[in-house]
């Protein structure tokens, strides 16, 4: 694993969590101060910033985002922010490092029997079918590097990654 490969991963918009198994090499590479500083300096030269807080690494702009960029960021991350909010509503104590089970999530969702939630799910995933909704919900979280499968063959258990903190920080601004 070299600096070029790490840049390739991060520049694709991957938020690398320290507890991720998939990006273990990248996280280990960036945990070494010299490597972090080297990539940080390189990114700084081309107008970007390497962030490494709350157990995850990601790239942001060196200068602050302007209004239009912030708006565009929120627009692009709308679904995932809503998904994190829903996850936290259904399983309030879920946190990084926890195991998230599809079955448990489904059970809790049914228990809630919340029309508002169902409406929001329908808005994001364009379906009301429970099985579809849950699958798409987990897909979205996985694609956003918030959860990852604990075992390739086990479709039920997922590991909650540190990246959830990043999105929670945004979600909790409205609380």
């Amino acid at each position: 694993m070299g600096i070029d490969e790490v840049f390739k991963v991060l520049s694709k918009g991957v938020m690398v969590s320290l507890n991720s198994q998939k990006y273990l090499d990248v996280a280990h590479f960036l945990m070494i101060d010299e490597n972090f500083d080297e990539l940080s300096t390189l990114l700084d030269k081309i107008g970007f910033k390497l962030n490494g807080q709350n157990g995850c690494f990601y790239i942001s702009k060196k200068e602050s985002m302007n209004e239009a960029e912030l708006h565009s960021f929120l627009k692009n991350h709308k679904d995932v922010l809503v998904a994190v909010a829903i996850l936290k509503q259904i399983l309030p104590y879920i946190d990084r490092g926890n195991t998230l089970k599809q079955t448990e999530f489904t059970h809790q969702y049914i228990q809630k029997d919340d029309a508002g939630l169902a409406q929001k799910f329908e808005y994001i995933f364009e379906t009301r079918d429970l099985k579809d909704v849950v699958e798409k919900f987990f897909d979205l979280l996985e694609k956003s590097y918030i959860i990852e499968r604990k075992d390739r063959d086990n479709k039920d258990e997922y590991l909650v990654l540190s990246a959830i903190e990043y999105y929670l920080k945004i979600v909790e601004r409205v609380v």
Partner: protein
Amino acid sequence: MKHIDLIKLLQENRETIDRAYKNEELVSVDDALLDATLFLKINKRYKLNKNYLNFADSILQRVDYSIIFGDYEKEYKQLVKLKRSYIESNQEYYKINIQKLIENLYEKFFNRDREIQVLIVRLESDRSLDIDILLAEANNTLEKIYELIDGNEKVGEFFRSDLRGLHGDIDELLQSISVDILKYIENIGKYIDQINSFIVQTKKRRELNVKVMQLSHRLLDEDSSSLDEYLRLHHETCYFTQLRSQKNRVQIFADDNDISKMNRKDLQEILDLVTVKRATKDSSIKEQSCEKLDIIDVDKIIEDIVKEKSEDIYLSIKYHGELSGYVGKHLVEEAFKVYLHIGTKDEVVFSKQFNEHGVKVAKWV
């Protein structure tokens, strides 16, 4: 005037000479400069002698596009003559003159090679000229270089074969310069390729400039259809397109500073309908309550009902010792529950009458 005096004169008048070299108009100069013919008076103005200008340009490697390379025809003819005279008379004088001419020619080769190099660098880096004029100058230079080819070959061949064997000194001189001369002759081909490539590139640049100019005119006329179409079709490889470009794009996140700037209202709009509560780690503590667990032995009640041959099962239950723990409303409720339970037994027969509590009278038979 001796050479050392000339150097002294140049040193004493260096500022005047430098101003004239930089094309400043001079209305008066020292008479000594005029006497040494370093300056000439033309139409009330003093100008530097062309010979001095050539010397300075050559040493400073400044070559103008107007340079004329000339050929070696004069020197060549003179050499042929001197060779003939030397063979006929075998006089040292001719030999020395042949050596001088060879050295002159070598210097000419050397200077020409350097001048061409400088000229090419100038062509390639010139940003001050109009692109058409630059192309014309490049073509001009190319023609001048082409003219050199024949002269170069002729002199080269003369050095290699015709002058050899005349005298050891001449052979030695020719030998010492042969490698360089060959290099200078070969360089010509290289320079031609270089200028040709420059001309092709410059022509392409001119075409591109024309296209950019046309496009800018169309955009000014608010006709952007062709540009729009191109950007749409090549969005994956173009940096600035109408669609999202994938080429070397760096995906970014909002950092802490950006997050702090996020408009609460915008976020609220996104998260509308989803109510989120901050997860608190304190769990609520329920007050412990003592639950009384009362067990009624129904079988014992049935046994007593059978033994007493009860006329009204409900009343027998209500006043049975098993229910002594209940009073008031609770006693009525518990007694009725047991009455319903016993009422499921086959031995119980219900009459059409109701007792004072409004419950159907039942007997055990």
